[in-house]
């Protein structure tokens, strides 16, 4: 099995500890995405897998072999850099062929593999161009092509799409998805800032924060059942609305009193000892709807309406809560600034976190 196994991997730059013990198993053929705020150590981890950074302590296995001291070129990996890192003085063809030529592959083999990769990525007509004569998206594809040519066991991507504009980003994302499909046995590790990428591409997402893993799981699992406040707010855009609350009734279903004194019932289990505990109540903007009746979660004044055509964002303020609640309503909504609205949500879509930020399981 060509998986990647990390055992208590730590990294420090001099005194600065960047990673504090990462344990992770990546199965062969899996597509794993690392997400996390800027500076949390995603790139560092990826570069350690690539062999571009030394491992301070811990053990890393690729394909079952300990690779701590194996140089990058012997690890059977390929990497796509955020900045493409194309060799600016070589044509597309030469860029893709470079690794194979270094490895002294036969001319025919080089040509075959370059053309195959170019074909997959629709680059055939650009093979003779220099990188500077390509658009951003094409460059990105060359970078991927270069990686494909190496025929790696493990594919590493470091924010490959972050330099692209929105349209290209979508298109390239889909191409990566297709690529994965064509190479089912290749393990892929992908670093991104972008949620949409993470959600659409990943088999499993690893959420990192400050050098630690917060949660590992399938995309929808993270979306629906975040382990803690951090993951809850990190996944989803706009972020989940969080309202301070106090538990007023425990049991298989829990009742909490929100700031602003509304009492809400959620289908999560709490133990009796937790009565009166402080908690955080969470609801995603897209789960909120405008309530017509009295059964609502929250009432407030609209401070801003952003009509995006497809959806409309309402920013709803209430003196009892510091930040405005955001509601994301489908289509175009007839409400305007200053209107008073009541918001409600399906109880199963509600989240509750304890004072430490850990989620109450349902």
């Amino acid at each position, binding site marked *: 099995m060509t998986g990647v196994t990390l055992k208590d991997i730590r990294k420090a730059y001099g005194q600065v500890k960047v990673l504090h013990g990462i344990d992770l198993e990546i199965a062969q053929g899996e597509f794993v995405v690392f997400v996390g705020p800027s500076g949390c150590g995603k790139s560092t981890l990826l570069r350690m897998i*690539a*062999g*571009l950074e030394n491992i301070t302590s811990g053990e890393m296995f690729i394909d079952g072999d300990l690779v701590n001291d194996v*140089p*990058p*070129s*012997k690890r059977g*990996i*390929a*990497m796509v*850099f*955020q*900045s*493409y*890192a*194309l*060799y*600016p*003085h*070589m044509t597309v063809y030469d860029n893709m062929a*470079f*690794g194979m030529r*270094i*490895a002294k592959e036969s001319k025919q083999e080089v040509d075959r593999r370059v053309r195959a990769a170019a074909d997959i990525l629709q680059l055939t007509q650009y093979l003779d161009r220099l990188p500077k004569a390509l658009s951003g998206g094409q460059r990105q594809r060359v970078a991927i092509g*270069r990686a494909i040519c*190496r025929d790696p066991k493990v594919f590493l991507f470091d924010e490959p799409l972050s330099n692209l504009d929105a349209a290209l980003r979508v298109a390239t994302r889909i191409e990566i998805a297709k690529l994965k499909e064509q190479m089912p046995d290749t393990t892929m590790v992908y670093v991104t800032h972008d949620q949409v990428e993470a959600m659409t591409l990943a088999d499993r997402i690893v959420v990192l924060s400050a050098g630690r893993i917060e949660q590992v799981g399938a995309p929808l699992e993270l979306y629906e059942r975040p382990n803690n406040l951090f993951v809850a707010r990190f996944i989803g855009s706009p972020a989940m609305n969080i309202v301070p609350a106090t538990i007023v009734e425990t049991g298989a279903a829990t009742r909490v009193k929100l700031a602003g004194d509304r009492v809400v019932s959620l289908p999560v289990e709490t133990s009796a000892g937790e009565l009166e505990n402080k908690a955080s109540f969470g609801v995603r903007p897209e789960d909120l709807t405008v309530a017509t009746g009295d059964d609502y979660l929250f009432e407030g004044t609209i401070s801003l309406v952003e009509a995006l055509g497809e959806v409309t964002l309402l920013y709803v303020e209430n003196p009892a809560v510091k930040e405005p609640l955001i509601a994301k309503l489908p289509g175009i909504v007839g409400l305007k600034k200053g209107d008073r609205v009541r918001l409600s949500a399906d109880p199963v879509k509600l989240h509750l976190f304890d004072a430490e930020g850990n989620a109450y399981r349902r």
Partner: protein
Amino acid sequence: MMTQIVSAIGVMVAGVFACALYYWLSDKLLAAVLPVPDNNVRLASQNLNRRAAIRPWLFLGPALILLAVYLVYPVIATFILSFYDRSGGTFVGFANYRWAFFDAQFRQSIFNNILWLAVVPAACTFFGLVIAVLTDRIWWGNIAKSLIFMPMAISFVGASVIWKFIYEFRGGKETQIGLLNAIVQAIGGDPQVWISLPFWNSFFLMAILIWIQTGFAMVILSAALRGIPEETIEAAVIDGASGWQIFWKIMVPQIWGTIAVVWTTITILVLKVFDIVLTMTNGQWNTMVLANLMFDWMFRGGGDSGRSAVIALVIMAAVTPIMIWNIRQANKETGGH
């Protein structure tokens, strides 16, 4: 002593200040002549546009005047002189050119100059590059760089003296005081009179210039190397390239432009340098180069302005292709803005 220092400082400040004052005053004057009233946008913008049209010439003015007086005018004078006899009095047509064509020493100088041009810029650039790459990788790199830069601070005459102590030859059984011969002797060879070895002696002179100029190349290339995107090197590491391959296939091609500039600068220097040849051999043992030959004809024995002018023009002609290439390059860059 104190008063000398004070007066020197005074003179310096006055000089620099006067120069700065020109720019300041000319700008003020421009502003005064073409006022920009707040209330009249039309006049204001008209005058602003006029200012913008005049200002480049104010900025360029001193430079252009200096260039015209100190370089362009002498070039023209030289061109004219090349058609006159040694004292510049009688018109002799192409006689000086004809002389140059048939003069053995002139041909020798051309040959040597080609040799210098082939070796020195290449060697300086090569060593500069290698040193820049290597010193970037070690903690005492800056110290090493300073040491290698140090010869730049030594005058050509001083440098020649230094190298005399390397090339010095003592005949027979005498103890060698020249390092090179001492080494040759220590390893069992025969001491040589390095600076009179036919053909090879030019290379021993070149070594001096290489020794001096490598620091220049190193400093500039080192800055360029730092501009290479890190990731391309990492990508090559992942692609399995060795250090050597990365250097030649990834790093060098990416700083090609800078290498060309360094090469050009040193090429020009090589064509102009004469102090080293003058002090080491004065062109004897077939080491004559054009700049030295020109110097010779210009000053020795009362001088021959006609012939030295021809040589000067040949020197300038020799670099013209390189310069044209550079000018193209410069103008291409400007295309952007």
